[in-house]
């Protein structure tokens, strides 16, 4: 019942958004001369044909005393049309409290339906709408890693390159920012098993990134080593704040600030970030987050790198 209701909302949202498209979509996140890499903690602002496998994270939880937590996840993103995409992912977690029994299992299956609202090449701007669904009952809810209830999070994503600045801005033009903000609500307001209310949560985050590929190809070629020219140093932030139905729970904002770097190749990227908790409730000490991310549209351009319905937009004959 819950799934039917979720799917119905997803398709209704998609139908509502279809007429709003005015983008000229490309496969993964190119917007003019700007390439937004797939970020590790938050999502990039484009639909795409991509595969994150694996994403590995280690951290110490915010419990007292803290537990060691390993998370290994995978996510497949696929374009249905040029502007409509879906992703499906899951995470396997192992939590080891000091002196206590280990808990391990899969979290709830997560799907995201996304619609590309805008890709403005001349202004290096991208906007995306999404609906994230965590499907309750599909994970290890007995061990507390999954939940018996579902979570829905309508989310807005954006990306903005600084290449729109005048040439006088020089090296600053290689900067870009991305962000997302969503409102997460559960399909039930009370967790009977845990005896707690399930809060509605504002989820938000962003990234500041400096593109060495952009610096080299658009601003100045410093003839740096090839490895450096493929790097995008980045700082990501991922935060959540309970805003409603939070009776008896901690009202504090939790999240991490993640400095790191992404190496971008032709067919894949590799990212590595430190995860720094913003407060004690978010974790105890610095963890890490690493990801191998495959560009399916570049690896298999004629097959699974194409949208499921129709082909990519045909190339346009250039006027000069």
């Amino acid at each position: 019942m819950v799934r039917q209701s979720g799917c119905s909302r997803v398709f209704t949202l998609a139908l509502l958004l279809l007429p709003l498209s005015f983008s000229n979509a490309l496969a993964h996140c190119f917007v003019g001369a700007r390439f937004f890499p797939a970020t590790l903690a938050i999502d990039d602002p484009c639909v795409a044909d991509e595969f994150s496998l694996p994403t590995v994270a280690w951290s110490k939880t915010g419990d007292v005393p803290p537990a060691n937590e390993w998370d290994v996840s995978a996510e497949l993103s696929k374009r249905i049309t040029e502007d409509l995409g879906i992703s499906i992912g899951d995470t396997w977690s192992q939590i080891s409290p000091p002196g206590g029994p280990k808990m391990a299992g899969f979290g709830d299956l997560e799907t995201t339906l996304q619609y590309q609202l805008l890709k403005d090449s001349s202004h290096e701007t991208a906007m995306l709408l999404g609906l994230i669904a965590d499907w309750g009952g599909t994970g290890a809810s007995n061990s507390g890693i999954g939940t018996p209830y579902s979570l829905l999070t309508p989310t807005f994503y954006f990306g903005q390159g600084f290449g729109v600045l005048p040439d006088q801005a020089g090296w600053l033009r290689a900067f870009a920012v991305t962000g997302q903000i969503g409102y997460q609500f559960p399909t039930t307001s009370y967790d009977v098993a845990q005896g707690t209310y399930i809060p509605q949560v504002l989820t938000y985050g962003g990234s500041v990134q400096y593109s060495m590929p952009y610096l080299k190809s658009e601003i100045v070629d410093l003839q740096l080593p090839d490895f450096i020219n493929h790097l995008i140093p980045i700082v990501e932030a991922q935060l959540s704040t309970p805003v409603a139905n939070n009776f008896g729970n901690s009202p504090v904002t939790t999240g991490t600030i993640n400095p790191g770097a992404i190496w971008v190749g032709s067919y894949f990227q590799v990212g590595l970030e430190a995860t720094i908790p913003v407060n004690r409730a978010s974790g105890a000490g610095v963890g890490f987050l690493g990801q191998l991310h495959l560009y399916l549209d570049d690896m298999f351009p004629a097959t699974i790198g194409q949208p499921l319905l129709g082909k990519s937009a045909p190339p346009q004959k250039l006027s000069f």
Partner: protein
Amino acid sequence: MRTRIILVPLFVMALATTAAQAHAFLDHASPLVGSTVPAAPHEVALTFTQNLEPAFSSVEVMDGSGARVDQGKAAISGNTMHIGLKAIGPGAYRVRWHALSVDTHTTEGSFTFHVGGS
């Protein structure tokens, strides 16, 4: 499980290397992106990371007022574009390019170079 997690992406990457092409990034240019050259060049040469489709790839060069200073038709072969320049003087010039790689991925970009000390 960890073994599988490592093997699956390696398998996918191995499959992809058999026939894959990708987006064509600008690898390097002559004159260099953002450089100042002492004498006016006779052409601009761009080298990309992938082979190009000549019919759908192009380049133009403009002076500070936006006037074209290239000779019109680029020579495109493999992963390179060459375009001749008219006689140009000291100043700033913008190179604007579009590229379609042989697997139909499009990319675009622009950069400036300077001639002389201006």
